[in-house]
Structures are given as C-alpha cells and as structure tokens.
C-alpha cells in the first residue's frame, strides 16, 4: 500500500508539491491526473524512492521512504513513458541484469517467465534495438515486474502505443489489480483513467484539488438533463425560460434538436420543464439525465481552480 503523508517538495525555491496526501490500497488502481507541471512525475518519483520529500513522508508497504529508500525501491516497480532500454543487450540478458539488481532468487528463470507472460518468449535472444515501440514498452513493464513488487508506479505507460497495444496494456494492468497490486497510474489520457481507475487524485500546481472514486468525481456538480424534441429550438428555450429554467444547446441526432439544463432538484424541475415544453407545443421525444465524461468533470475541476 502507498500512503503519501503531507508531502512537500521544493526545487531551488520552486514548490513542485505542496502538502500532498493520498493513499493507494492493494488491489486498487488510482489515477494521478493534472496538467503539465502539476507535480505528477515528482510525486511518483518520491513514492518510488528516487527523490526525497522536502517535508512529509511516504510509506510504501509500511516502510518510510525517508528512513529506508532502498527498501522502498525494492518494493516498487517503475514504468516511465519512455521504455529507456539498453539497446545493445538481448532481452534475456537485460531482464536477467535487472533481476540480479533486485536480488531475485533465480534471475534467468524469472526473465524467461516474464518474457512468456508478455508474449516475448520468441525474442528472448534478440537485441532490444530491434524491438518495435510496443515490444519495448512490454520490456519496460517486464523490467518493472521482475521482482514481483507489491506497488506499481506507471508514469504515462501507454504513450505512443497504438490502440490495440493500449488495450492490451489496460487489460494487463487490470490483471495486476486482480493480483492485489497497489497501482498508481500517472496519465494525461482521461479515457484510459475513466476505464480502469478506481479512484482519482487531481493535482494542480502541486496541490491536490480533488480525490475520490472515479464515479463520484464524474457525478460531482449539478445534475444535468438533456431534452430532445422535434421543433423550433427558440420556442423550446423560451418555454423553459418562462418556467425559470435556463437551457443551452446540446448535440442531438436523427434530425432532432436537444437542449441541456441543470436541475438541482430534478423531482420538481423536470416535470415543470416537460409541462412548459408540451404546453408550448414542443414534441418531446426523450428527457434523460446526462452523465458527465471524466474529461468534462476534470476540465470543470481545473476551471474552478483557475477561477
């Protein structure tokens, strides 16, 4: 488990992280989101024991990164956006080298086992320089798993991967969650986060803006409803305005028109909206709640922070 406790990190007077706290439990995927420069990479490097916090502490599997960074590093698997491989080495030697660095009992057997797990067993003796981008990222993942760590830190692992490879990677990350790994996924890909993350941590200018379950963060804010109809949008908007409901255009299909409105109390507002529209002769087809995408929720959280 990862327990980030009030971590602050300064670089030459610049505050990269400011009193950041969050947890990642075993069997959980937490996505660390935020714009460029928010402090995501700094956070994952501190958790992985590569950087020390200026203030605060991180416990990985109960071990303080301040007190024993080497033991923390031994419990973390680190995947970065760039595979960063030793190109001249063949896969077998490469994985064997890292297995030995991590004191794995049978390094060569472990290298072969991981290669098989990731579908690389037929290229074990090929030099890494000849590998495709997708294969290289698989090697980086194998390197991170070589010591079977309880904690995985994935920093933009799907960058530059094709959709098929990204999907495979997602499935693999989910399979690791099933094996009770605590996984921190640093990403800009909100679609990926929405699909696999159980919880989210949104960072902005080094501070935690929001933490919570992915579904809760998507649902946060005023509930929004969309009404689709056949008819003049101006008539419909006027009818809603007379009922005290402010509406805006929304996208619709099949030659229909759509308006979106927020309703704090849908049990009162939605019937009033329907009544107003029907009274105005608008032929209503559907009235449905609109689920925000993670992207919309994320952008609204950032917009709120910038205000």
């Amino acid at each position, binding site marked *: 488990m990862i327990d980030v406790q009030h971590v602050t990190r300064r670089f030459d007077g610049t505050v990269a992280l400011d009193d950041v706290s969050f947890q990642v439990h075993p069997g959980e995927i937490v996505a660390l989101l935020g714009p460029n420069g928010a402090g995501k990479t700094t956070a994952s490097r501190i958790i992985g024991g590569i950087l020390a916090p200026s203030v605060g502490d991180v416990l990985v599997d109960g071990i303080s990164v301040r007190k024993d960074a080497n033991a923390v590093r031994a419990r973390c698997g680190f995947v970065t956006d760039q595979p960063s491989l*030793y190109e001249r080495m063949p896969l077998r030697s490469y994985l064997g080298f890292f297995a030995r660095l991590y004191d794995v009992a049978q390094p060569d057997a472990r290298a072969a086992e991981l290669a098989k797990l990731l579908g690389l067993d037929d290229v074990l003796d090929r030099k890494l320089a000849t590998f495709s981008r997708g294969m290289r990222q698989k090697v980086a993942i194998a390197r991170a798993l070589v010591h079977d760590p309880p904690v995985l830190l994935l920093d933009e692992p799907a960058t530059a991967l094709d959709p098929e490879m990204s999907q495979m990677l997602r499935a693999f990350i989910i399979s690791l969650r099933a094996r009770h790994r605590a996984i921190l996924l640093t990403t800009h890909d909100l679609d990926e986060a929405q699909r696999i993350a159980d919880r989210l941590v949104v960072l902005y200018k080094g501070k935690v803006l929001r933490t919570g379950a992915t579904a809760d963060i998507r649902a946060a804010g005023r509930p929004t409803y969309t009404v689709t109809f056949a008819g003049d949008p101006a008539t419909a908007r006027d009818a809603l305005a007379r009922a005290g409901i402010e509406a805006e255009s929304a996208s619709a299909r099949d030659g229909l028109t759509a308006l979106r409105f927020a309703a704090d109390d849908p049990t009162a507002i939605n019937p009033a909206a329907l009544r107003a529209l029907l009274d105005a002769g608008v032929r209503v087809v559907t009235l449905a709640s609109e689920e925000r995408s993670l992207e919309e929720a994320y952008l609204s959280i950032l917009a709120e922070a910038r205000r």
Partner: protein
Amino acid sequence: MKWWLIAWREIRWEVFLDRASLLRTGVFVVIPLFFVISNRGISPGPAGDATLIGLALQSVFFPALSGVALIAATFSAEKENGTLVPLLAAPIRDFDIVLGKLVGMVVPVMVACVVTLAAGYGLAAYRYGAERVARALTPELLYALIVLSLLYLVTTGSVTMIVAARVKTSRAAQQIAGIVIALSALVFAGVGFLASQIGEGWPLLALGAGLVLLDVVALEIARRVWNREEVIGRV
C-alpha cells in the same frame, strides 16, 4: 557487490560493442607505438634511458586518456537516453552506481594500457636491443607506471563523472572531458618531467603519493556530489 553487476554490464555490453569507443581507444593505443617505432635512435647513457622511460610513459598514459572520454560518453549517454532512470529506481546505493560505472570503464582501459605498454616494450626491445631496454625499464618501473596510470584514470574518471552528472548532453560532457584530458595531460607531463629531472626513485613515488591523495579527494567529492537527487533533476 551490485557495483560489479553494473561494471560487468558496462564492459560486456557497452564498451566491447561500441565501435566508436573501440576506435577511439585503438587510436590512443596506436599513437604511442608509432612513437616507439618512429624514434630515430636512443643515445647511450642517462639521456637515452630518459627517452625510453618517456616512451614507456606515453605507452601507458595515452590509452588512459581515452578512458576519460569513455567515462564521459557512457554516463551522459545514459542520461540522454533515459536509461539512468530505471537504474536509479533500483535498490542500489548511489556509491554502487558510481563505483560500478567507474570500474566498468577503468578495467577495459587498464587492459588497453597494459597491452600497449607490453607492445611498446617489445617493439623497443626489437629496435634498440633487449638488454638496453631491460636496463632502462626495470620491472619495478613498469609496475610503477601501471599503478600511476590506474591512479590517474581513477582521479580524472571521478572528476569527469561529477561533471557528466551535472551537464545535460553528451556533447557538453565530451567537451569537458576534453578539457580534463588536456589539463591533466599537461599537469602530468610537467610533473613527470620534473620528477625525472630531480632524481631517481622518490620523485616518482611522490608523484604516486600525490595521485593517491587526489584519488581519495576526487572519489570523496564524487560520492558527495553524485546523488540520485542531483542526477534525476537533470534527466
């Protein structure tokens, strides 16, 4: 012993598979041998002995100069390619990384130094007579030269490593390695010349003692300056 893992990887997969570094080392091996062959003649007496010692000094130190460039190249290349990040994320002490990198470079370069010295000795014996060369280049002197070249390599290698950890690009590291090579060669040639002028035995010993001191200081600075924080901030 994790430093040895790093050192062995450097030797096996980087030094011996890097054609550019092999070529560079090859040039530094050939130049002193060329000097041995192209020398017009060795006069009898102390002046001739000094020339033979000078040639032996060149044979052992020229390959050592290439080692400095090698250390700068591999270290900064790791930073540029990002391969240093997985290494820094592994459970290894900073000192093991520094020592592993240094040993990984020093071992092959020292092999080149010894081979060049042996080849230079053989060529000189063939050209100027085995007895004449054996009288000037005693086993003790040859041993001292090898030890001095090792100490020189460790000192300049440590300095280069500190620099390579602080600069961002291979080009910058190579430029600084060039300055280190030029300055250290100048200092070493000057001190060596002075030592040979003052007398036999002890000045060379003093030079060695000075280098040992420099070694200790350079390694201590490398240990203090080179740390994950510093390096990761510049990757």
